[in-house]
């Protein structure tokens, strides 16, 4: 059985569809003849969904402040009852994971998460990086469809197909009972300066090797001088040195910059998965056996608290 019909959950973010949504539409187009998209609160996204290959955009409508998970999953379950796709692709975002989990339980179908590759080999094959990205697990669904596939950011390249605007079809939510009663009452945006972590061509990240929270300022300074973004390992986010929005790794952001500079990061499994796709990797760590050196194009065995200030001085000297 080959794959002919794929649905993609596309997530509205600040008046556009999220980057991962566009990556998934692009990949879906290469796998299946028919690609449909599902979104919420957004007939306005018909042009963009069509531009990236969706022929139909199912719109769940305004959620009136409810978290999307339960409502969007119910709308999709309603669509599935009328016509079953081969697979439903969902971005691995906060809301995407909620939708996938709710939908899985609603339609009683399995979900495969942390997917970083997709192929059609007589049916859909998913790829998952395990053990710090050292091994790739390939898996497939064995029962009746649709299989639910949650895909990590930056697994595919977003490429417009130049297609016409998708035709918009309303997808009613139906009865939600108690499940959709979680409501957003306020949103807080944490101010960031410089480019976004996921988009920056240069990422400078700090870890435990910095020694203390105050030293993270060195990472931010180096990032600023390189017109890059500052990232962090889970260890120092958990320790409260820096906000979660800086976290790179399995549970944080996936980055693929031109160069990734890891400062005092040993290279735990959890971190490597989020950055090993970087084009170039520079690592500074005082432990010569730190796993991060195994994937670094340039490794400096030394104390980040002396190397980083020297680097900052050198960059300032160049700028002046």
């Amino acid at each position, binding site marked *: 059985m080959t794959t002919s019909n794929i649905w993609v959950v596309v997530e509205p*973010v600040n008046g556009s569809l999220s980057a991962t949504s566009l990556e998934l539409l692009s990949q879906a187009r290469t796998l299946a003849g028919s690609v449909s998209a599902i979104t919420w609160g957004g007939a306005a996204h018909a042009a963009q969904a069509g531009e990236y290959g969706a022929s139909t955009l199912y719109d769940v409508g305004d959620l009136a402040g409810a*978290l999307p*998970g*339960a409502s969007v*999953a119910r709308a999709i379950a309603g669509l599935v009852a009328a016509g079953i796709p081969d697979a439903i692709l969902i971005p691995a975002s*906060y809301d995407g*994971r*909620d939708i*996938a*989990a*709710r939908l899985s*339980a609603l339609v009683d*179908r*399995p*979900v495969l*998460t*942390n997917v970083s590759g997709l192929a059609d080999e007589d049916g859909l094959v998913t790829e998952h990086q*395990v053990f710090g*990205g*050292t*091994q*790739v*697990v*390939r*898996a*497939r669904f064995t029962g009746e469809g649709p299989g639910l596939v949650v895909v990590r950011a930056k697994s595919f390249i977003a490429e417009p197909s130049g297609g016409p605007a998708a035709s918009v079809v309303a997808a009613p939510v139906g009865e939600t009972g*108690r*499940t*959709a*009663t979680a409501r*957003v*009452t*306020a*949103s807080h945006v*944490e101010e960031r300066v410089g480019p976004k972590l996921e988009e920056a061509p*240069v990422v400078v990240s700090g870890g435990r090797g910095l020694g203390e929270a105050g030293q993270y300022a060195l990472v931010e300074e180096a990032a600023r001088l*390189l017109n890059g973004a500052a990232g962090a390992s*889970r260890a120092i986010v*958990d320790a409260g040195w820096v906000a*979660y929005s800086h976290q790179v790794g*399995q*549970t944080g952001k996936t980055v693929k910059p*031109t160069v990734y500079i890891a400062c005092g990061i040993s290279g735990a*499994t959890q971190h490597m998965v989020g950055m090993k796709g970087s*084009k*170039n990797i*520079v690592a500074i760590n005082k432990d*010569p056996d730190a796993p991060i050196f195994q*994937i670094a*194009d*340039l*490794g*400096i*065995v*030394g104390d980040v608290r002396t*190397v*980083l200030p*020297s680097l900052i*001085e*050198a960059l300032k000297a160049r700028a002046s």
Partner: protein
Amino acid sequence: MNVVVCVKQIPDPAAPQSLDAAYNLNRSGKLILDEADTYGVEMALQLVERAGGGEVTVVSMGSAADVSGLRNALAMGASKAIVVSDDALRGTDALGTAKVLAAAIAPVAPDLVLAATESSDGYTGTVPVQLAELLDMPSITFAKSVAVEGSNVTVQRQTEAGYDEVSAPLPAVVTVTAGVVEPRYASFKGIMAAKSKPLEVLSVADLGLAAQVGPAGARQAITSVVAAEARQAGAKYVDDGEGAAKIVAFLESIKVL
């Protein structure tokens, strides 16, 4: 207020990990309480203390042969533990796990169910919300703070841009991030008390879920495991004062500078 915390005993993440012949994670070594779950246990204990009464119950699926991780949660202050343990559960997927946990949790009738956002071994990250759906509860994921006021739970939920304030009526499922609270260490008194706290072991038959668990219930299969494309390690220098200069030269070579 009664709180259930979903916990998992996992192979020590610091030890080398491997898959067995059936592509299941090798769990034959020592198991520990997933560190990610200690935040939920601590949060639950604090919420119950603040509410002025109630119980924290930890619920787990996995081998009952080694329950030191669950005893650890009891030593922190949880009142009792329920573990669903059965050879038939080997190879159960996320949805099957959620079905098992839902069946074990429903009779407890908790006001709140807490879980980590994902386990540190499987990383699937869907079980808590699948569980919420099966229990007909609202869910709020990725909490960085949790407060209960009256019959509502209010959460600061992480977003791409910062955080949202989200509120839901109880009973509800909330997943907590590492760092939501600082987990306490079990006291000697707590460790001694944990030895006599109730630890209930249930089988799949007890829950009436036979057909929905194990590899058959998973309806997905690993077809192969291959080595990832290896990255070649490049030059490595011991910093002799020239480390920064070497980085600048490298950045020039790739035209970042």
